[in-house]
């Protein structure tokens, strides 16, 4: 068959290309800007199972985490700054701790590994945490990666055309996809097209007459000065976040939700998130939101008070109203596949998405049931 065109060279598109290539398919990735030019370069590189309640996304995340282990091994863990450091959920009050316990029980039943921690144990595991916390839980399966590097390395060996915007889906007599037309008029033939355009996912889908209600959900991250050299221990050992984070992810409130998410990077900086709000593509930096991120960070790690913020960046998560990504065949246009709408979990869920898409395109059976992610569900 002629090859497959993947539209979008973000982490999800890169993962789709990776798995398709492994299945022997000829892949061409078309990207309107640059490798990891969208949301993939605007996050913390989270690979989390800890923040997901039992359900299809958790199942996908657990599978994806296993795949990440293999992918990282093949790409080179150091090259992509792979850190299987584990995540720490911290409860600031007894009632928060209670909610954490109840969630952990349900997650365990679904296959998540977790250890509940008392306040004392918390401070042993993460010595610079503030005192007075109620307790928490440790999730060894949580990991972190440098997402731009991961995307770029996944694409090594794949044909990628950057600066190439797809303007039109081309179809044949039965309405099946035959290729795409790019902005400069070139037609790239393809037996299948994968829409991995992230936060712009709705646009390409609309060409097939399919409604994908993907909207931008803005987030900001603060980055501190480097706090250690390469061979020194990190002042923050795990990915640490407060119990409120899962609520923020699951919220449908368009107003700003913030919840502390803090970790060190290989480069020695500390990344401080997180915020979520639906304000279209507004890219102004409201100081009140940055203030909240800073205040929450200092409340968790008092030593951060005197640490300097060098920069801040923002991104637009591809949000769907039911908080499930869109993975699967377009309901109207044979040969068009969607792989987008991963909200803030794109990095973590990318390998499973790629494997799922590759399996479905080549007629195999994905390890996780794709039905909940069906693009047809929005009719």
């Amino acid at each position, binding site marked *: 068959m002629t090859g497959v065109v993947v539209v979008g*060279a973000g982490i999800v598109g890169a993962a789709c290309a990776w798995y398709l290539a492994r299945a022997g398919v000829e892949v061409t990735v078309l990207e309107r*800007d*640059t*490798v*990891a*030019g969208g949301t993939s*370069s605007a996050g913390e590189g989270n690979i989390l199972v800890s923040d997901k309640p039992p359900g299809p996304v958790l199942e996908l995340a657990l599978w994806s985490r296993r795949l990440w282990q293999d992918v990282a091994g093949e790409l080179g863990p150091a090259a992509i700054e792979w850190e299987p450091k584990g995540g720490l959920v911290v409860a600031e009050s007894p009632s928060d701790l209670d909610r954490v316990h109840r969630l952990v029980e349900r997650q365990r039943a679904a296959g998540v590994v977790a250890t509940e921690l008392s306040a004392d144990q918390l401070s042993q595991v993460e010595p610079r945490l503030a005192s007075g916390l109620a307790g928490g839980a440790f999730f060894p399966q949580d990991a972190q990666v440098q997402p*731009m*590097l991961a995307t*770029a*390395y996944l*694409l*090594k060996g794949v044909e*990628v055309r*950057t*600066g190439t915007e797809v303007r039109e889906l081309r179809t044949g007599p039965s309405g099946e996809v035959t290729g795409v037309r790019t902005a400069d008029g070139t037609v790239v033939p393809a037996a299948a097209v994968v829409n991995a355009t992230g936060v712009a996912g709705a646009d390409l889908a609309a060409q097939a007459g399919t409604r994908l209600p993907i909207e931008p959900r803005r987030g900001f991250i*603060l*980055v*501190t*000065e*480097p706090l250690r050299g390469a061979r020194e221990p990190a002042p923050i050992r795990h990915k640490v976040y407060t119990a409120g984070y899962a609520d923020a992810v699951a919220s449908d409130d368009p107003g700003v939700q913030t919840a502390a998410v803090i970790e060190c990077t290989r*480069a020695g*900086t500390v990344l*401080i998130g997180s915020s979520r709000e639906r304000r279209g593509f507004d890219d*102004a*930096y*409201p*100081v009140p939101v*940055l*203030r909240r991120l*800073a*205040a929450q*960070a*200092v409340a968790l790690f008092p030593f*951060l*008070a*005197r*640490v*300097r*913020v*060098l*920069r*801040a*960046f*923002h991104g637009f998560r591809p949000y769907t109203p039911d908080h499930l990504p869109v993975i699967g065949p377009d309901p109207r246009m044979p040969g068009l596949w969607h792989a987008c709408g991963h909200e803030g979990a794109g990095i973590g869920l990318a390998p499973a998405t790629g494997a799922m898409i590759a399996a479905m395109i080549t007629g195999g059976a994905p390890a996780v049931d794709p039905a909940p992610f069906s693009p047809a569900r929005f009719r």
Partner: protein
Amino acid sequence: MTYDLAVVGAGPAGLAAAVTAAQAGCRVALLDAAPHLGGQFWRHRDSSGAGHRAWSVFATLRAALLDSDVDYHAGAAVWAAEADPPGFVLHVEGMAPVVARHVLFATGTHDRSLPFPGWDLPGVVTPGAAQALLKGSGVPVGRRVVVAGAGPFLLPVAVGLLSAGVQVVGVYEAGNPWRYLYRPWVLTAARLREAAGYLARLARRGVPYRTRHAVVAARGTGAVSEVEVARLDRHGRPVAGSARTVACDALAIGYGFTPQIELPLALGCATRLDVDGNLVLEADLAGRTSVAGVFAAGEVTGVGGASLALVEGRLVAAVVALACGRPSPFTELELSRLLSRRSAERRFAALMHQVHAPPAGWVSWLDDRTPVCRCEEVPYAAVRAAVTQLRATTGRAVKGLCRTGMGWCQGRVCGHATAALTAHLCGRDLGPADLETFARRPVAQPVTLATLAGEGRPDRFPDGGRPGPQRVRPGDVSPRTSADP
């Protein structure tokens, strides 16, 4: 209190604007991160003005400022700017935010650098550093100094060092100043006299001034002890075999200046790529940017020197005064003179940028280990690999893959070079988008998380290097002594 005008930057443009607007009756706040007025151009240690050009202009403006109602805050570093309709709010470290209906960014420039092997050796500094050491602290940068790079600024730096008893081993200009004579009508008598004066002083002291020459390498153990100087061909490439070794104990090298525009960028101001390869703010004759209420004057609208900055500052003040219902501070004749002066200065600046353009072949003098980003120590080989192996096609992609521009200076030093390098490796021209990624800084100065969190605990001296903001009143002009707290 809401000011009519907040001015960020107290160099020539900001000072002229603040004084003019205040004299016209506007309520003005003037903020500058430095402890003294004058910006880089009028950096000084004492009040004598020794060694300074146009000192009387500065002295007059300073006296006028201190005589006015301007709320001048020295040591005030603005770390964020936000729209706060109907005006703007400026967040300043160590003091309450400043709210104003109009804001003028006159934030000036810093030296622009191009990497070369050995440029990270101690003793290699920018011409601005040599100037700051000498004018600000009375310390010469070395005993046997090479001055190099491009631009008219190399001359006063070299002559200033000579006046301080330093042996200037040579001045190496990459451009070809004979090209000024292609459009001699653009040169004023004053400029010609100034240049002739500098060149004569160099000649009298036997200091070679070589055009179409560049320092292509610096060497030394622990500090620079010699540099390699090569002749450049018509295309700005080092001529093979022309390199000579020159012994020195300091190298002051820079290729023009880059404006600091992160605050107006945060407010959404439009930019353009200027003739000198800088990203500058788009502004009209009166300094209006694309955002209503936001003004720009001086180097941020295009590098053009202090005379242009003074004119632009005055023009902004005139417009702001009128917008506040005050009478114009200038007569029609004065305004038309200011405008024609502005045109003349901009014409000169355009020619200057052409004459002193960074040599097009500079990439060829890099080796694999040459650091491109000093802060994060990113070598050229990594930048090249990001483009050729990892498919980075924009400055932003290179930054994300290599960390160039992610360190303390946030791309101030490496931004132009990384953007130009990326374009070169991609086989295309430098574009504004490449530069923008290194020009945008939503957090404009490194602030502590405590400051950001709004816990207004002032940093204890000497944290950050500056003593913190203080309101300056008339009579506060005397330099601080070691007895000060």
